């Protein structure tokens, strides 16, 4: 007997993306909820192995296989079609009437010959089970669950190019995502009322509670190009509508043409190719291929039929479905809306999918979009705003996100064509020998994408590279990569520097952690290189250069306060309901006029650059603040934090490091403000984004921090700050640079002793 692996209890979506909260889906719970949807007794566990399809086979033989329609049913259909060929009396029938006649005759024959077709009827019964509940099967020795919608897609749906979908593990998780949205009634148990973010329990986990009403309107799928998500949504919605009485389904695209394409190519054409036994009676008035509306009704006999209608909006206008009652809604390419704002359109539509001011959700929406071809920058901005309001973890007191939808992102390397293994698995990293033989390559999808990016960089094709990144996003933020013409920072310099660092890895900042030597809480801070570390550092400190602090007014202060300045950004920047962002820190080495006098060539200047970066989210804010404190003590930097969040400031004060905090000073009077740090508001940010752009031009080539450079590429303006923690920190250091404090301290420093001062030596 073979050693099979049990089914994974948990499926995780958005896994590994630094900008997204991972969504954990319990597959057993999902199965139970599916049974509950149909008022059937819920199973207590997954089925036993011996009842799962493929049991008894060797793992390497266990691949997905399509259902085979019994010959009896195929012959029956053939005979009926032959009988109703357009000749003699059948000549008078229109094609659609003939099709309806064929369907009727098919069921009559089965009905009146139940003994003859007993096996076929049993098969059809089984197909109905799979369609509604999903199917269990073994894939390469592992028990696997696929949802009913995904099963329907794989077995009966066709893509617009007339091909049949193949089994992909990425699509399995995708379909679990949409089923989860349809059935989920949970939210986070403990939510911080101020930030709207969930709070962990004592074990570092998030508790969920069931509030017995749906909490999610649907998924917001940001996708790579040509992955078939549009067809998959249409399959899901057709599957639902063709077994639901009096349902209303709407499709809206970025334009009339786009919606027509979705309706015709992704819905009607595959519908017509469905086997007879899945087709409900549909309206003959629209002809064999309905142009605008697919009506599951026979207008000649109003007593019969589902009375269900699928149509599409002829524009992206918000009023198209305003006031309508919808069961399903598909918004296609909403990341590219030109004259409408997706926030407004979805804001209208979500009340079509629910009652009670959005509290009682009866419908399901789905958004599928790529973000390439952004001609109008506002399209990207609006959609980004929508995404920022759709983060899974940001819930209101009713358990919903601000938009009601949740972001589900699959990076381009997951399911990339040409990098799919023999069992439908995504080959992201280095393939196994078997996988390599199967795909004919010795590298995975990630390497392939990196190679493409490198080739764009070599060719200095920044436009092409920006487009490629948007079309093949490897992380959530890539979706919003602005084209060079609309980029705030000089893309060519940044890309060039990244390329240089790739070719010269010895120049790249070293990754590591700060720690308290000997574990003493207020002891000396040490640096420990660690490839998994939280910090990147790009300056070599001599032993006596570190931990240089002095006690002044019963509080520690940096011994040389004008040498380094850091700016931490504590978990989230400006949005009250933003994503669960990382904490960020940038420490800048200010211009050292002794080593780098004003007339020195810029390429040879060692200072006036960033030397420490940090983009990480520790379990607690306390831990983050301690990380910040250690970094500042180690290099002896003044700290100029963003004042919107006081956590770091409070921590420094509590630990006796008040004098490490940098206050803004009035340029005229020299008086300092009441609180240290800078206040993040639009006018300051906008002004300093321009300063940042100048800084990139001037010093960008000397940056040794790929994490910061990567954020520069994604940065498209103030709206992006929520997701660009390092850029926020960097802005803080630039604001600090212009603080009149440094003019004041310059004079003061003339009178202090320079004994023990050690100049910087490059190794």
């Amino acid at each position, binding site marked *: 007997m073979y050693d099979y692996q049990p089914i994974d209890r948990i499926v995780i979506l958005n896994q590994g993306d630094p900008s997204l909260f991972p969504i954990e889906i319990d597959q057993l719970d999902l199965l139970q909820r599916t049974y509950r949807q149909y008022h059937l007794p819920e199973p207590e566990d997954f089925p036993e192995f011996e*009842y799962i399809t*493929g049991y008894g086979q060797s793992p390497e033989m266990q691949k997905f296989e399509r259902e085979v329609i019994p010959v*009896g049913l195929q012959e029956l259909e053939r005979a009926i079609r032959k009988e109703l060929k357009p000749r003699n009396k059948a000549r008078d029938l229109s094609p659609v009437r003939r099709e309806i006649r064929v369907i009727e005759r098919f069921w009559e024959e089965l009905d009146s010959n139940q003994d003859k077709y007993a096996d076929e009827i049993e098969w059809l019964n089984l197909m109905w089970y799979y369609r509604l509940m999903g199917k269990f*099967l073994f894939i390469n020795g592992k028990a696997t669950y696929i949802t009913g919608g995904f099963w329907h897609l794989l077995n009966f749906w066709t893509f617009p190019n007339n091909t049949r979908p193949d089994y992909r593990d990425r699509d399995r998780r995708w379909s679990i995502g949409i089923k989860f949205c349809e059935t989920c009634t949970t939210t986070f148990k403990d939510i911080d009322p101020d930030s709207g973010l969930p709070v962990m329990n004592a074990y570092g986990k998030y508790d969920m509670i069931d509030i017995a009403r749906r909490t999610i309107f649907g998924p917001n799928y940001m996708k790579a190009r040509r992955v078939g998500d549009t067809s998959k949504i249409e399959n899901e919605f057709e599957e639902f509508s063709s077994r639901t009485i009096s349902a209303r389904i709407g499709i809206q695209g970025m334009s009339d043409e786009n919606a027509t394409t979705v309706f015709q190519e992704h819905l009607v054409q595959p519908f017509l190719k469905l086997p007879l036994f899945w087709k409900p009676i549909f309206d003959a008035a629209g002809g064999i291929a309905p142009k605008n509306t697919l009506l599951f009704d026979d207008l000649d*006999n109003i007593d019969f039929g589902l009375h269900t209608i699928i149509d599409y909006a002829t524009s992206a206008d918000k009023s198209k479905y305003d006031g309508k009652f919808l069961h399903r809604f598909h918004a296609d390419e909403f990341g590219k809306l030109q004259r409408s704002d997706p926030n407004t359109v979805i804001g209208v539509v979500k009340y079509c999918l629910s009652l009670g001011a959005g509290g009682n959700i009866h419908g399901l929406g789905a958004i599928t979009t790529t973000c390439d071809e952004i001609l109008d920058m506002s399209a990207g901005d609006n959609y980004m705003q929508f995404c920022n309001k759709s983060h899974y973890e940001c819930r209101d007191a009713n358990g919903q996100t601000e938009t009601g939808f949740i972001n589900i992102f699959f990076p381009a390397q997951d399911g990339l064509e040409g990098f799919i293994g023999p069992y439908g698995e995504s080959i992201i990293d280095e393939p196994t020998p078997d996988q390599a033989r199967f795909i004919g390559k010795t590298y995975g999808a990630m390497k392939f994408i990196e190679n493409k990016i490198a080739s764009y960089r070599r060719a200095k094709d920044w436009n092409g590279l920006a487009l490629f990144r948007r079309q093949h996003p490897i992380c959530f933020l890539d979706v919003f990569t602005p084209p060079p013409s609309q980029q705030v920072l000089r893309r060519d310099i940044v890309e060039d520097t990244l390329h240089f660092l790739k070719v010269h890895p010895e120049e790249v900042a070293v990754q590591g952690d700060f720690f308290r030597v000997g574990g003493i809480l207020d002891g000396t801070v040490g640096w420990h290189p660690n490839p998994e570390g939280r910090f990147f550092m790009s300056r070599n400190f001599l032993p006596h250069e570190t931990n240089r602090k002095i006690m002044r007014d019963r509080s520690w202060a940096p011994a040389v306060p004008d040498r380094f300045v850091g700016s931490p950004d504590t978990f989230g920047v400006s949005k009250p309901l933003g994503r669960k962002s990382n904490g960020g820190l940038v420490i800048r080495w200010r211009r050292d006029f002794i080593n780098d006098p004003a007339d020195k060539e810029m390429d040879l200047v060692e200072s006036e650059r960033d030397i420490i970066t940090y983009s990480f989210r520790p379990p607690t804010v306390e831990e983050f603040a301690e990380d910040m404190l250690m970094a500042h003590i180690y290099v002896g930097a003044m700290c100029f934090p963003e004042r919107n969040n006081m956590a770091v400031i409070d921590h420094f004060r509590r630990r006796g490091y008040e004098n490490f905090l940098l206050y803004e000073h009035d340029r005229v009077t020299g008086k300092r403000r009441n609180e240290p740090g800078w206040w993040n508001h639009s006018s300051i940010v906008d002004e300093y984004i321009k300063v940042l752009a100048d800084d990139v031009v001037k010093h960008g080539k000397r940056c040794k921090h790929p994490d910061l450079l990567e954020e520069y590429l994604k940065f498209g303006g103030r709206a992006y700050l929520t997701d660009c923690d390092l850029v926020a920190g960097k802005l803080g250091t630039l604001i600090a640079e212009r603080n009149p404090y440094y003019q004041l301290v310059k004079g003061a420093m003339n009178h202090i002793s320079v004994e023990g001062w050690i100049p910087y030596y490059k190794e």
Partner: protein
Amino acid sequence: MPDYSQLLYDPFAPGTLAKLEQYEEFKFEAPDKPRLISYLIIMYDINSDMKRLYPDNLWERKRNSAIAVGFRITDGHFEGWVESYLVGENDQFNEAVLRFIRLFGIPDLPALMAYTEILHKQVLAAMKETNEKKLETIQKNIENAIEKISLYERKVYGGEETEQARKSLYLLIEKQRLSLRPEDKAKEIETKTLRVTDPYYGPKRRPGRPRKYPNV
């Protein structure tokens, strides 16, 4: 007042036409369709009085059925369109008749009806025909039809008991009608009465080896 409770459909009830129109074959246009459908029911229902009153003469049965539902005879003839329906010149109506007969769930009944029609058409043809050879063929057809009718009558009307049993059988079939159409499943889902064959948890579960179906 005649009792129509024994019939499959009440020929004069207001909802009868709508009920029958759920079948594709009944969706046709006719000048007086409700009356025509009434005629169809009392003419072809196996429990109709007309069958008992006119067991042998099909034309007599047709004529009296038509009169019973209200079609008028003027100068010895029905209206032209009525006559065309009665003598089987309208294909759509013929299909409706065939569909109606099949509703009884008795496999031999359509054949019996067909041979009865053939017999009467052949008898009419024999009266007009003068060609010896053709008469010989017609004669053979009539003999063959009589034989078949006799056979199928024994099968279909083989005694009160059998008929009652068949009726019960029919009712059973009606109860166990397949519920596999999307419309049927939609109704089950709507009424929370979904029936599915559960291969994993239900009593009909089977080991999960790849299934082989007959004829696959």
